C-alpha cells in the first residue's frame, strides 16, 4: 500500500513535467505580444524590450524553459508579467476560494446524489426513478453559466434573497485565516454570523457548480446499484431472509459506492477546471477567474501555474480515490 502510494507519487513527476512542456508549447504558439500589453500603452520600443529583458522573454524558448524548470524545483513558479507578482503568491491567494467552492459543490453532489441514485435504483421504473432520471439529464444539459445567471436573476436580482456574487461582504471583517476556507475559518473563530454570511455567498455558485456532478453521481450510483442489485449475492441475501433495508443500505450500497467513487475522483478534477465559468458568473475570486484573466492577457506564467496546480490536485485526489477504492474493495487490496 505504502509502496503503491509512493510509486504513484513518483509517477506524478513525469506527468507534471509533460504538463509544463505542453503549456510552454501552447504559450509559444500565442502570436501576441504580452509584453507590449504589460508595458502599458505609452511604452516605446526600447521600454518594451527592457520589459522583455526583465522577464527573460528575450531568451530562446529552451533557455526560458530551463530557467522555469530550475525555478520550479526551488518552488518558484515564475512571475506574472502583468502584475509582477510571483505566481506562487497569487495561487496561494486564489486557491482556497476555488477549493472551498469545489468542496462545497462536491459535498452537495455526493450528499444528494448518492441517496437519490440509490433510491432511483431501488424504485426502478417507478416515479422516483423517472423523476431522478429526467432531472439528472436536465441537470447535465444545463450549461453551468446559464444556470448561474438564472440563479442570479431569480435569487439575487428579483427576490433579493442571496448575494449576487463575491465571497464575503467587504464591509465585514472576514474571520482570521486558518484554512483559507471562509466557512471553516468562521467556525474556528466561533463567529456564527460570519459563517452564515459565508454560506450565503457560497450557496448560489455551489448550486450552479454541483448540478452536473450531482447528476453524474446520481446516474452512476443508479447504474451501479442496479448492477449490484442484479448480482447473484443480492438474490442470495434475499433468499436467506435478510431485510431489504439491510441489503440495500449495507450490502448493496457499499458495492455501488465503490464503483461511484472513481467518478467522484474524476469529477473533482473536472470541477477544478470547470470553476472558470461559475467563477466568472459569480465573481468568485478563485483560480478559474485568475486563469481566465491570465489567458485573456496572454500572461502565461500564471496559466502554467494554474495548470500545474490543478493537475497536481487532480492527480492527488485520484490517488486518494484509488486508495479509498482499495480500502472498500478487499479484492483489490489483496490482489
Amino acid at each position: 500500500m505504502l509502496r503503491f502510494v509512493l510509486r504513484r507519487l513518483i509517477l506524478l513527476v513525469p506527468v507534471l513535467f509533460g504538463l509544463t512542456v505542453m503549456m510552454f508549447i501552447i504559450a509559444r504558439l500565442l502570436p501576441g505580444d504580452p509584453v507590449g500589453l504589460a508595458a502599458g500603452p505609452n511604452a516605446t520600443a526600447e521600454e518594451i524590450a527592457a520589459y522583455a529583458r526583465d522577464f527573460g522573454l528575450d531568451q530562446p524558448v529552451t533557455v526560458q524553459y530551463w530557467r522555469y524548470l530550475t525555478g520550479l524545483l526551488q518552488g518558484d513558479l515564475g512571475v506574472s508579467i502583468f502584475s509582477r507578482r510571483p505566481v506562487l503568491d497569487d495561487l496561494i491567494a486564489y486557491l482556497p476560494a476555488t477549493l472551498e467552492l469545489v468542496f462545497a459543490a462536491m459535498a452537495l453532489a455526493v450528499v444528494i446524489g448518492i441517496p437519490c441514485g440509490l433510491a432511483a435504483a431501488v424504485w426502478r421504473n417507478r416515479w422516483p426513478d423517472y423523476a431522478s432520471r429526467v432531472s439528472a439529464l436536465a441537470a447535465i444539459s444545463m450549461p453551468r453559466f446559464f444556470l448561474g445567471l438564472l440563479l442570479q436573476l431569480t435569487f439575487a436580482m428579483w427576490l433579493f434573497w442571496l448575494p449576487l456574487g463575491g465571497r464575503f461582504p467587504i464591509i465585514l471583517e472576514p474571520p482570521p485565516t486558518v484554512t483559507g476556507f471562509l466557512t471553516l475559518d468562521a467556525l474556528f473563530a466561533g463567529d456564527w454570523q460570519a459563517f452564515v454570511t459565508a454560506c450565503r455567498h457560497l450557496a448560489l455558485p455551489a448550486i450552479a457548480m454541483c448540478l452536473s456532478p450531482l447528476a453524474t453521481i446520481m446516474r452512476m450510483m443508479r447504474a451501479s446499484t442496479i448492477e449490484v442489485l442484479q448480482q447473484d449475492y443480492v438474490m442470495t441475501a434475499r433468499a436467506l431472509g435478510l431485510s431489504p433495508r439491510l441489503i440495500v443500505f449495507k450490502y448493496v450500497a457499499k458495492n455501488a459506492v465503490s464503483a461511484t467513487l472513481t467518478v467522484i475522483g474524476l469529477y473533482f478534477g473536472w470541477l477544478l477546471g470547470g470553476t472558470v465559468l461559475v467563477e466568472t458568473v459569480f465573481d468568485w475570486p478563485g483560480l478559474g477567474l485568475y486563469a481566465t484573466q491570465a489567458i485573456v492577457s496572454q500572461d502565461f506564467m500564471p496559466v502554467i501555474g494554474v495548470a500545474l496546480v490543478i493537475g497536481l490536485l487532480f492527480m492527488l485526489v485520484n490517488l486518494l480515490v484509488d486508495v479509498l477504492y482499495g480500502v472498500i474493495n478487499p479484492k483489490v487490496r489483496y490482489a
Partner: protein
Amino acid sequence: MTEMTESARAYAFRRGWFRFRQSSLSMLGAVLVLAILVLAVIGPWIAPYPEHIVGGVDTANRFQSPSLAHPFGTNELGQDVFSLVLAGTRISVLAGLGVVLIGTIVGTLAGALAGFFGGWADEVLMRLADLKLTVPGLILAMAVAAALGPGLMNMIIAIALSWWPGYARLVRGEVIARKEEVYVTAARAIGASPSRVLFRHVLPNIVSPIVVKMSLDMGFAILTVASLGFIGIGVRPPTPEWGTLLSVSRSYMPDFWWTAVFPGLAMFVAIFGFNLLGDGLRDVLDPRARR
C-alpha cells in the same frame, strides 16, 4: 431464438427500436434532435429578420421586449433575438459535429492502434491521454483558442484537441477487451492477419459504444462551444453563436432578461435533446447499460 424469417439485422433493429420507443424520454430526445437538425439546415431561411443574422443593425429598435414582431425581443443593437437564436442552431450543430467527428476519427484510430498493438504506441498515447485528463479540458481549449484567435474552425480545433483522448481511451479499452474474445482468438487460430482481425472482427463490434459516446458527446460539444463563447473566445462577429449571445447579454439582466434567457434556453434544449437521445441510444446499443 426466434423462428422469424426476417434477417437478423432487421430483427435486431426492430428489437432496438422497440426498446427505444418504449421510453418516451428517448422519443422526446429524438424529436428534439430532429427539430434541431432541421432548424440547423433551414433556420437562417425561416428567420423573420435574415439581415440581422449577417450583422444588420437597427439601433432605433433597441431592447424591445418580446412581442409578436419580435418573439424573443430585440438586443442592444436592435437585432431580432429570435432570428439570432434560430441562426445560432446551425453554428452550434456544426461546431458540435465538427468536434465530435474530429474527436472520433482521430481518437478511434489512435485508440485502435494503441489497444491492438500495445507497446510504445500504447504508452505514448496513454501518457498523452493522462496529460489531457490532468489539464482541465476547458482551460486547455481556452488556451488553444486564445492562441489561434476567434473563429468557428479554430474553436472546433481547440476543443477537438482536448476531445480525442476520450475516444482513444474508450476505443483502446474496448479493443483490449474485444481482443480477448473467443471469436477473435478463433480468427487468429484460422490464420487471420492482424489487420484482418482488427478491421473485421474487433472494430465492427465496438461501433455501438462509439455511436453512443458520439451522441452523448454532441451535447457536451455544444456546451463546450457555448462555454468558450461565453468566456469570450468564440466565433467572430457577426456570427450568431449562443454562448457569445449569452455572454454579451448577461450585463443587460435583469431588465432586458430576454436577451440572455432565450439563447440560454436554446442551448439547454439542444443539449438536453442530444443527451436524451444519447441516453436512449445507450439503453438500446450498449448491452452493459441495459436495465
